[in-house]
């Protein structure tokens, strides 16, 4: 998460279903929601918030391609060019024998590349803290609204949140 500054309105919801129904309503009233924090994934929430679809899959494919290329390059070069040897009567370069390692390295590169990308794009790193409401990793669903990016007054937004099922509305200043 990027560094936060300014004044935020924090709506606390008790129920994921209430929240999921509230998000489009609140957005329809013109409130810009920064992010919603929940203790578990809520399907459809990112779509309701209007977040763009993640492109991490494309990255994963490219990492896999890299792994595949590295594996084949390593094996073809060492076995075929650097020190060619005939083992078991096979060609120095015998692609079928390279399939297992090519597969393993493709998986390895994809997994590590994708996880690294995941950590970086989410800004995850040691010793950062949950900023808005500690209960959002337990049983509450927390909606954060950046007041600087909304033209409405704090009271208006607060009313909209409450009308749509928020149990509490708090102000957070960073």
């Amino acid at each position: 998460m990027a560094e936060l500054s300014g004044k935020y309105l924090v709506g606390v919801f008790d129920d994921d279903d209430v929240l999921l129904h509230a998000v489009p309503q609140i957005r329809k009233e013109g409130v810009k929601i920064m992010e919603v924090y929940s203790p578990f994934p809520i399907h459809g929430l990112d779509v309701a918030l209007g977040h763009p679809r993640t492109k991490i899959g494309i990255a994963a494919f490219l990492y896999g391609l890299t792994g595949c290329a590295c594996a084949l390059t390593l094996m073809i070069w060492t076995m075929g060019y650097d020190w060619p040897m005939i083992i078991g009567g096979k060609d120095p370069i015998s692609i079928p024998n390279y399939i297992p390692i090519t597969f393993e390295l493709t998986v390895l590169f994809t997994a590590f590349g994708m996880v690294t990308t995941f950590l970086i794009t989410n800004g995850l790193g040691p010793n950062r803290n949950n900023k808005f409401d500690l209960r959002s990793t337990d049983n509450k669903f927390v909606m954060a609204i950046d007041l600087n990016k909304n033209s409405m007054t704090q009271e208006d937004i607060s009313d909209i949140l409450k009308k749509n099922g928020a149990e509490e509305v708090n102000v957070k200043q960073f």
Partner: protein
Amino acid sequence: MHVTSPVRPPLVTGGKTYADVTEDICRQVEGKPTKPWKIAFTAAVLVLLYGTYCLAWTWWEGLGVWGLNKTVGWAWDITNFVWWVGIGHAGTLISAILLLFRQKWRTSINRAAEAMTIFAVLCAASFILMHMGRPWMAHWALPLPNAFGSLWVNFNSPLVWDVFAISTYFSVSLVFWYIGLIPDLATIRDRAQNKVSKFIYGALSLGWTGGAKTWARYEYVSLILAGLSTPLVLSVHTIVSMDFATSVIPGWHTTIFPPYFVAGAIFSGFAMVQNLMLITRVVYRLEDYITIEHIESMNKIITLTGSIVGIAYITEFFIAWYSGVEYEQYAFLNRMAGPYWWAYWAMMTCNVISPQLFWSRKIRRSVKWTFVLSVVVNIGMWFERFVIIVTSLHRDYIPSSWAMFTPTMYDIGDYIFSFGLFGTLFLLFSKYLPVINMAEVKAVLRSSSEKLPAKVAGTAKRDNNLNQSV
């Protein structure tokens, strides 16, 4: 959002709310170590110390301390290696394959099963290092110019494939497990009362906040990791089986090995998960999360894979006869009726007959029966590897070199080492990390709990009514 079939029993019983889940799972992480845990941990560490002594002596003195001889050059070391790798298959199977198949019951058991996988693969890897005899030469297995000259490893060899398969499997499983842990570590961080745990869990949870964007990416990453891990799980034991299958030893040289080994691995892995979970659920009072339904589901998989293994045993015999190869035929007759007949029949009884008892609903829903039969299955699977390895080797082509294998105290001690290592790691895990994936359990709670926090008219309410009518 979910439509639950009314005939399906709830995955989590006891009418838990989200807060209850957090409370129940965090309890043992936050509390002081209990007396039973301390006793078990001390015992595991003592076993590990004894094993470490045996292992140290094996390395100091050399592999001569084992009972190997000229004919039987692989015995307990590789038996134990394959056994542990096999056990290490259940965790990723549960979290990856069952994720792809949308089997929601996996949420209660995947965390512990994945931990088990990682520790079991570590135990397996320790046997790889042991059987090298000179572990300080272990880097020779890596694609470095051999001895830093100009030779390379032989990429045609399944033993080299194995190095890649096991290390990829271990590291990908570890990453998969850790990514799944992050949200739960954040839960513990946000509840932490003292400075030390705030710092440790704060560092480990990497600043997780659970934003919708993060969760969407998290789910996507989980799905791709699952998609990758699924063929990975299958590839690992396939490659382990190729260590044998690509050789020309009668009894090893069979094309049926890859699927047969994979089924056997899942079979023994689930049996080990059963053993661990049955103890964990009682000790940590998690009966509402790991219910009889979970146990039954796993028993069904044990029966399925056990039956595949049984068919594989019989197919091997048929093919040995059908091939018309005298040596192949002798190898199999020798397994069944030779000097190691007892190992063969132990394997047949434990692996083929015992899981068939689970056809009885009463038995597969009984905790005691499940525990006993799971132990039996793991004994049987150890014997399977012993039969394949030692029985195939001990009578080779020249009758004058026929020999028997007798384990020494170091063969046994090195096996004990792996139990000590596994026990110590698993106990540490079960005390300091959440044994159940809280976030995933919470996500299936609405569609599967008896008492639902339904407030909005529509889907949630309908789910509620359906569940109440059960």
